[in-house]
């Protein structure tokens, strides 16, 4: 029973931030001409709505808020990556925390939890739309037709299980690797903390850090977007009856 309290606390804090800010915007919103921040929030909403409309067949009122939650929450958690790696742990150490993992998406628990929730939803809608029989039939007959039943079962099972796994591991891997690179770049200056080498290593660290930061802005957005789109696509596949 290990509780990764840092992960839980930061992710919930970011989720709360999202809900509070979004709720305030929604409360003060008008259906007339929207002001600055409302406009921004609405453009995100519209972006998500477009994605859902493009890749989701049929209508399900849960999909759009789910996609919005994933996109914004994952983006916010990924964004913690852009805060200088040692800053929050340092502040934590002043408060008496010996160890602090800042980016919740570098914790496999977070990404797999989200992937599993999505997996649960796909299972639920698969059974709801196709019926339990229909869903099981997909396992029996799906890739190769009815003459290769055992192979079909194995193939479809792998396919179904690979969806949440790849979903969770992709986000985790990208974020973890990104954080690791930030740590390595941060170590550059630290390794030469004493001595004349600092003159070379310190500017190099600044330049590398900046480059990786700029690149990472793209990565965190892209990963949040991929997670969202794949969720929509998986759920859309669950909603189509004939496969």
């Amino acid at each position: 029973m290990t509780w990764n309290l840092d992960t839980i606390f930061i992710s919930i804090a970011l989720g709360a931030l999202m809900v509070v800010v979004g709720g305030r915007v929604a409360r003060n919103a008008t259906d007339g001409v929207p002001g600055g921040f409302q406009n921004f929030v609405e453009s995100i909403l519209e972006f998500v709505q477009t994605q859902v409309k493009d890749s989701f067949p049929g209508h399900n009122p849960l999909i759009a808020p789910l996609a919005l939650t994933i996109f914004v929450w994952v983006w916010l958690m990924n964004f913690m990556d852009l805060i200088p790696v040692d800053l929050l742990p340092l502040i934590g150490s002043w408060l008496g925390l010996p160890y602090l993992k800042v980016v919740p998406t570098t914790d496999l628990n977070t990404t797999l939890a989200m992937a599993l929730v999505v997996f649960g939803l796909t299972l639920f809608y698969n059974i709801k739309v196709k019926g339990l029989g229909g869903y099981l039939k997909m396992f029996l007959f799906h890739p190769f037709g009815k003459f290769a039943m055992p192979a079909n079962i194995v193939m479809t099972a792998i396919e179904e299980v690979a969806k949440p796994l790849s979903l969770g591991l992709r986000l985790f891997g990208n974020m973890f690797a990104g954080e690791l690179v930030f740590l390595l770049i941060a170590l550059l200056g630290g390794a030469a903390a004493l001595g004349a080498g600092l003159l070379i290593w310190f500017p190099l660290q600044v330049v590398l850090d900046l480059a990786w930061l700029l690149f990472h802005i793209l990565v965190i957005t892209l990963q949040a977007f991929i997670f969202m789109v794949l969720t929509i696509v998986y759920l859309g596949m669950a909603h189509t009856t004939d496969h």
Partner: protein
Amino acid sequence: MNITVTLFAQMLAFGLLIWFVNKVMWGPLSGLMEARQKRIADGLAAAEKGKHEQELAEKRATELLKEAKDQAQEIVAQGQKRASEIVEEAKDTARAESERIIAAANAELEREVNQAKEALRTQVAAIAVAGAEKILKREIDAKAHEDLLNDLAARI
């Protein structure tokens, strides 16, 4: 890096967050956006309708203008006709009047001429009598020769 009970905590948090986002953010905001879309669509439709109505009104105005022009032309033509009629009438009247005046003048003239002739006649008779008196150096009975004198005066 191990999978721990955190996984379940995160799953719960994720589920709750979806619910919250739907309730607090997505629901109201998407409702608002739909309302705005509807309002914009309504506004565009109204604008289209207004444009159409304006076109109709313009068409009607052109028709009215044309009608009015036609009427005005008719009225002007009528007026011109009436004016020429009046002028003709006036000319006729004037002609009649002038004829009447000329006739009256002629009558007057004739009357005066006759009067003058009459006067002349009497005077000539008197002169003739006086002349004859002088020529004959004797008294002629005017009464005895009145018929003769009258005949003479009538010949003048």
